[in-house]
């Protein structure tokens, strides 16, 4: 089993605390390059900004296995100045505007502190106070002397915390995947060539993964992401049957989502590996949504692809929650799977 402890949690903390909104992934890219370079046989930053790192194995007849995790997160872009340090902004990626009022954010590369304010409840009538605040009426306020540039990105100011069995942070989607790839890259088994794609712009259309797959031309691919756990109680006490995943049940293996029927051979292989190694796992409830696997699977002449996600609650919000054990078990499952992979797995008869 790969080593797992404080060093891994520290790495995830660093990754979650930096801001890398889709299209401006530099802060995460810097950490990734620093972490993977010592172990890589080849590293490049591609035309879109993804980090593509290869670590060669040592055995004969090795498969090229691509692991993908996206570096970007949802966030904001400053689009117009309103005067007095106040700016209009747009969301980048799928953000529920109900999560924005009253939040602290950092703006631009200099991480300028700012807040998203709202009309005081005292100045509203009863009806207005029960409606969501539309994006058009929200502003980012840097203070009277604040100066941002149109085009600056902004992200939530949330800082990573450990809480009992859990982690609370912004952007667990998908820094936990990025950290997983870094760990697997460092501790890669020698029976495969590991092609690690730290891809850009997943949140706005799976763009980085597509060209990464075309560059690597792997034998198979695994998208490592973080998927929502909607395991909340229902208002009327009835059973929650649409939880997607649940915290604490281990890595979530995808069978089918909105864009991909995941390669059944790989799904079964991951399941069998988990069973054999005694690693907890769960199937993500088949349904909508998707990961980079959608783009990878349809690249080139088709690539056998599967997705594995660490479940987290409260996706794309200022604070997500994931369990340390789910993450550890995800690393363990993927490591065991890589170690036992052979060409047989994807042989066409």
């Amino acid at each position: 089993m790969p080593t797992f402890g404080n060093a891994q949690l520290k790495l995830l903390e660093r990754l979650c605390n930096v801001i890398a909104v889709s299209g401006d992934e530099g802060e995460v890219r810097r950490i990734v390059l620093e972490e993977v370079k010592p172990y890589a046989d080849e590293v490049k930053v591609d035309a879109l900004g993804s980090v593509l790192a290869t670590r060669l194995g040592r055995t004969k007849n090795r498969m090229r296995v691509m692991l993908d995790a996206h570096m970007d997160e949802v966030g904001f872009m400053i689009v117009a100045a309103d005067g007095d340090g106040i700016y209009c902004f747009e969301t980048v990626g799928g953000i529920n505007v109900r999560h924005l009022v009253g939040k602290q954010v950092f703006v631009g590369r200099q991480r300028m502190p700012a807040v998203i304010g709202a009309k005081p409840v005292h100045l509203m009538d009863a009806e207005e106070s029960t409606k969501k605040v539309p994006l058009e009426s929200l502003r980012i306020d840097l203070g009277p002397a604040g100066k941002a540039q149109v085009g600056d990105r902004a992200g939530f100011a949330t800082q990573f915390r450990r809480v009992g069995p859990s982690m609370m942070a912004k952007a667990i989607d998908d820094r936990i995947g990025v950290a997983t790839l870094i760990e697997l890259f460092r501790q890669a088994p020698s029976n495969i060539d590991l092609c690690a794609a730290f891809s850009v712009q997943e949140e706005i259309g799976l763009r980085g993964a597509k060209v990464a797959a075309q560059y690597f031309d792997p034998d198979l691919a695994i998208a490592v992401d973080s998927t929502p756990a909607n395991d909340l109680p229902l208002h009327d006490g009835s059973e929650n049957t649409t939880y997607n995943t649940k915290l604490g049940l281990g890595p979530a293996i995808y069978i089918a989502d909105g864009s991909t029927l995941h390669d059944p051979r790989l799904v079964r292989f991951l399941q069998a590996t988990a069973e054999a190694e005694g690693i907890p796992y769960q199937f993500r409830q088949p349904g909508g949504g998707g990961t980079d696997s959608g783009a990878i699977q349809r690249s080139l002449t088709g690539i056998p692809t599967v997705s594995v996600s660490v479940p987290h609650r409260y996706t794309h919000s200022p604070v997500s929650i994931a369990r340390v054990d789910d993450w550890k078990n995800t690393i363990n499952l993927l490591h065991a799977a890589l170690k036992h992979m052979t060409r047989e797995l994807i042989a066409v008869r």
Partner: protein
Amino acid sequence: MPDILPFLKSLLSVAGLSGDEAPAAGLIAEKWRPLVDEVHLSRVGSLHGLRKGSGNSPRPSIMIAAHMDGIGMRVSKIVDGFLHITNIGGIDLRVLPGAEMTVHATSGKEMPAVVVLPPARFLPESAGDGFPGIEHLLVDTGLLPREVARQVRVGDLVSFANEPLELAGGVISGHTVDNRASVAALTVCLEELQNKMHTWDVWAVATVQEEVSLLGAYSSAFALRPQVAIVLDAGFASGPGASGWQAFPMGKGVGLCIGPNMHPFLHKKLKELADRLEIPWYLDITPTDSGTDAFAVQITAEGIPTALMELPIRYMHTPVESVAVKDIERVGHLLAEFVASLEADFVDTIIWE
């Protein structure tokens, strides 16, 4: 002038919700102790600091009151490790989803937590496309249900956890700027009074429960029975979402209020003094009830001539309420000068025109 910012930031980093103001009261008492002659708590928890005047006994006294309580929530129900909540004071529900909170558990632990807006399909249809009621929001501590059951009880307090943030241009933003900014202004006044002669006694008061019942204002005014009172509270600064006659620019001066809660003579005196000192001010109008401690103080005992000064803040009752430090200093300075200007017979000059 000593820098008030570190003290304000410490005040903005503690809970001190209505009915449980002790964490704020403790910090304020520590700060005031060297600035006044005596400090004590009222029967209901308001903090009284007395700075004696130089006049002959019995001296008249002025009470300057700012409420120290903050709005927040408490646990109403626990389901599968998730907490249901109810509000303390006028919470704007729309700031809650994704807000970082602290659960003050019965076990003594302070637990980080986040407010959860469940997906629409988990809510009754009546919640609609608008904003569901507080009964549908959840609080998640990240702990396992059995751990939550062991440590948390119905009634435990849930407060905003975000640390204050300094914004560009001398603005500080955080939860409970309403009304800890006024407590800071009152503290600036006490600091200035260290180097000033004043005839009158000064009661510096940090009141409890303004956000729910004005309990502290009623009870302290009754107990201290000042001849004159000035209440400090937060007013609306213009900015996103706030415009019109109730809102005033942040950082451009202090609000001197007129309306039935305020004695017009005191207002006139404050106004004249502000002009003389070249302290920028604006006329803050409250046509019926100011919605502040001034209401309670005014009608206490045989009635107390009361004035109200407001600090313009942005985003009131959100966790990112913002105030200009300069306005805090202005209020403190104006208060100190007003106290120093009070002659022994000032009460007799208070007239109705």
